[in-house]
């Protein structure tokens, strides 16, 4: 239950250290090989469609977490282990990559 694990360690959800999806642009490009902050993701929990740039992002050990700006559900998790990014996209019902 990776989402449960993350919920435990960032229980505050929105606090003063929250960044935007924009801040994950470099990491997302590393993973997807293209600019992803303008990609539209649909939250699997509430159904809201937004550009990833508008999501809530935290960089916290052991990686980065992106949450829905509307309902705060976890959209995307990236955990870095031994030079490898482990990516969990299960919080996204759909992800449309920009042209």
């Amino acid at each position: 239950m990776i989402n449960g694990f993350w919920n435990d360690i960032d229980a505050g959800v929105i606090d003063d250290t929250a960044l935007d999806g924009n801040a994950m642009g470099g990491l997302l490009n590393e993973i997807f090989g293209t600019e992803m902050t303008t990609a539209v993701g649909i939250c699997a929990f509430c159904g809201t469609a937004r550009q990833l740039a508008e999501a809530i992002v935290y960089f916290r050990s052991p990686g980065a977490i992106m949450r829905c700006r509307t309902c705060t559900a976890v959209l995307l998790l990236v955990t870095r282990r031994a030079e490898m990014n482990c990516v969990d996209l299960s919080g996204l019902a759909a992800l449309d990559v920009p042209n």
Partner: protein
Amino acid sequence: MAGTAVRGRLTWETATVTAVRPETSSVRTIELQVPQWAGHRAGQHLDIRLTADDGYVAERSYSIASAPGEGVALTVERLADGEVSPYLTEELRPGDEIELRGPIGGYFVWDGDDSATPLLLVAGGSGVVPFRSMLRHRGLIGSAVPVRLLLSARSLPDVIYRDELEHEPDGVEVICTLTRQQPPGWTGHSGRVDSALLSQVAWPADQKALAFVCGPTPFVETVAAALVGIGYPPDRVKTERYGGAGTS
């Protein structure tokens, strides 16, 4: 395909510092020569990576302060408990090399191709950095887009790019509010940006302005909510949050 600019995956590259100059007591502008730079859009950022002798790696994002077509410049504020900014603002010298990747982002950008839409730029402290890129871009492309820049700073000496902003061309209004200390005879605004101040200085909602808000997270939360409160549609308020640290 010849002539087709396919942008590949971002890679870390080595840039060389060409100049460092102070902006305020805690803020420096760093000019860089980046050999493989693909060109950037006004408002984009880049990632800096520092690797310690023991292999510990710290990465941070910084807004690009220069206009598209100019050399890459960053303006960095020193954070007292920062892992990266003290090095960038105190140790880095011309000739030093640094690892970066970019440009990054396609959301918090202004290309200047819509001359009918007024711009509202609201900055808390070093949140003004991407707006310098946008204002310089506006000047370089000869855009006549009306711009209002609302700056929040602790005191007058904390205003970044003060000299440059005092000489903005026609069509750019710079409005400053000082939150902690005002000089004698100060005729500008005082206190934090709130609904009352925005009602006074922001473009009225019926002008359908495009708003960009950048600064520390609590600042951006407050300003974005207040703009929606005075009638700006949420999709016309673009935000970039710097996190909890920093000054406004």
